[in-house]
């Protein structure tokens, strides 16, 4: 059975026993869209370099069962090393034993989607499905058959004391796994939160993780959002993150892609008010036959907003990376400041980068720059270090670590940065 056939059959099973409420309607719509559009192919400009064939032909199982105990799951993640709120999903299903809640303010909500849509129905339905576009095949697939995920709700004026780490652990020890995590983050006016998405995997069977995040940030609110991809093995991962921000909001988003056979990140910012400040940083270090695609889009819809995007890649072996960044400056968005850079270092003759920085500007009073570089390490710094007695190998390591740490350090959780810097060193 192909993936599309599997989704059809699973949805029909689900539809038979589902309660026919507003939530179901949304999913039914999404399923209709999925049936109509199917999975994207390389004929679609946005998927030109990114082939889903390997995924669409696989046989995956949707299954909550994991033979692993809490202890081995803890060890697989970075869960015990950072003091933060934790909500953990294994193969898409909530694993309550590992959850940790440190906030003492009872108004702040963090629970599973399954719980939220019943217990916090109004708050949940006010945002669910409002931002992620179901015209996208994989979004439609997620919306119609989502596994579960986190609902984080920070009410007006509240500041979370600790970050929330949403961990997804893939256990593909026994069989191939399909999971569709779905997270909804709502930061109300003048509130603030830090969210970490943490992906890890164990086992040798293939897995496909198809994530959708919807994030709503209301006026004067602040969000730190980090995505860390460390799912080793034959893992396929698609992540769609839609951030909808109102005026006077500050968002710092960092995407680190270290492991994963096939990773596609779709990051979309929509600036729906004036004086928004959005930072998008990314780092990818593929090796072997890894494939990493970072697609981003920043919509400057209103005047006086600032966005800064910097994605860096270090490619080894036969790995491939794609960068596609689109900055869309709408007619109304005067006095926009938008910057975008993509820098790549190729460490192998067989590695490939396809990069496409794009600017579309409809306003006439804006300041925008974009650019991309692909190359080797510079000769001058190499020689300078060697002339001080540092071997070629050590010099390369120093320079590559510096190149990568520049992005890792955008994460404002020192313990996490320390772990990631060690991971980066391992990859280099």
């Amino acid at each position: 059975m192909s993936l599309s056939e599997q989704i059809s059959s699973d949805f029909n099973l689900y539809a038979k026993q589902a309660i026919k409420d507003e939530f179901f309607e949304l999913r039914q719509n999404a399923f209709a869209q999925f049936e109509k559009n199917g999975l994207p192919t390389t004929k679609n400009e946005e998927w030109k370099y990114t082939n889903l064939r390997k995924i669409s032909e696989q046989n995956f199982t949707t299954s909550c069962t994991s033979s692993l105990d809490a202890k081995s799951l803890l060890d697989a993640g970075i869960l015990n090393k950072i003091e933060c709120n934790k909500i953990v999903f294994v193969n898409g299903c909530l694993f309550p034993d590992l959850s940790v809640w440190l906030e003492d303010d009872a108004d702040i909500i963090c629970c599973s989607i399954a719980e939220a849509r019943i217990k916090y129905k109004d708050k949940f339905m006010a945002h669910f499905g409002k931002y992620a576009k179901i015209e996208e095949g994989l979004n439609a697939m997620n919306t119609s058959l989502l596994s579960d995920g986190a609902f984080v709700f920070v009410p007006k004026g509240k500041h979370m004391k600790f970050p929330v780490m949403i961990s997804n652990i893939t256990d593909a020890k026994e069989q191939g796994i399909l999971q569709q995590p779905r997270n909804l983050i709502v930061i109300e006016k003048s509130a603030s939160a830090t969210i970490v998405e943490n992906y890890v995997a164990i086992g040798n069977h293939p897995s496909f993780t198809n994530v959708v995040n919807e994030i709503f940030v209301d006026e004067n609110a602040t969000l730190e959002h980090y995505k860390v991809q460390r799912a080793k093995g034959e893992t396929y991962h698609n992540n769609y993150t839609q951030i909808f921000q109102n005026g006077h909001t500050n968002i710092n988003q960092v995407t680190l892609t270290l492991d994963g056979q096939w990773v596609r990140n779709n990051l979309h910012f929509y600036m729906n008010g004036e004086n928004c400040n959005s930072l998008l940083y990314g780092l990818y270090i593929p090796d072997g036959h890894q494939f990493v695609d970072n697609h981003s889009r920043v919509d400057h819809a209103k005047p006086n907003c600032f966005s800064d995007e910097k994605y860096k890649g270090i490619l080894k072996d036969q790995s491939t990376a794609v960068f596609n960044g689109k900055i869309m400056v709408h007619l109304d968005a005067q006095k926009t400041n938008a910057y975008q850079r993509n820098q790549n270092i190729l460490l192998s003759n067989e590695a490939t980068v396809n990069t496409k920085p794009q600017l579309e500007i409809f306003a006439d009073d804006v300041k925008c720059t974009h650019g991309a570089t692909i190359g080797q390490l510079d000769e001058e710094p190499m020689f300078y270090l060697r002339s001080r007695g540092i071997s070629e190998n050590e010099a390369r390591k120093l320079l590559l670590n510096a190149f990568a740490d520049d992005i890792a350090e955008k994460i404002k959780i020192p313990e996490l940065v320390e772990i990631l810097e060690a991971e980066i060193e391992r990859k280099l």
Partner: protein
Amino acid sequence: MLSINNLHASIEGKSILNGINLEIKPGEVHAIMGPNGAGKSTLSAVLAGRAEYEVTGGTVDFLGNNLLDLSPENRAREGLFLAFQYPVEIPGVSSTNFLKTAINEKRKYHGQDPMEATDFLKFMRSKMEEMEMDKSLTSRSLNEGFSGGEKKRNEVFQMAMLEPKLCIMDETDSGLDIDALRLVSQGVNKLRDGERSFLVITHYQRLLDYIVPDFVHVLYKGRIVKSGDASLAKELEIKGYDWIKQEVEAAI
């Protein structure tokens, strides 16, 4: 310490050094002067081991080693130090980490254990005091955002940390105002201990007012055409390079 014998070198097929002979003994300070294009910077680049220059003839002996056979890092580990005319900015690499790596790589080469972190920091602090370096240096990225003077002082500070046997200074005075020049020279003079040798490459005499050389050589068209003591530099300051050029042309 350093013995250069009939050294020839070229870049992209163009011959730049045409038979250099130079002998530097421990503790000596030699200055190499010369007009633009004489081959001064090529000489320092060849000695430090820049790959883009091709040595087409001659030998260089450094403390009993065939210098030209050594990689740039091994030249440094044997005790050669090149102070760059344009020190390179390396964002993201802290000065502390850089120096620790350099020192420990050298120790490894000589079969010594790496320096303990606390010993290293103590050593670095004492050298910073000695060389009157600003404390903020330790946390800053290597040369990043440094002014011209700060970069040159940092070169001399690295020299103090790495304790080389022979220091080659490539146009260290270029781009420095008089105050910075004095500070840099003071640093260099602190490192003169009767054993350490210096090869000071400069276009102008003014640096040699502060770092007084034992010998001055004039380089022209890739050869040393005149040698003397510090007074030769003064003479060049007054008369310029033209009279030497004429002398050379006349001899041919």
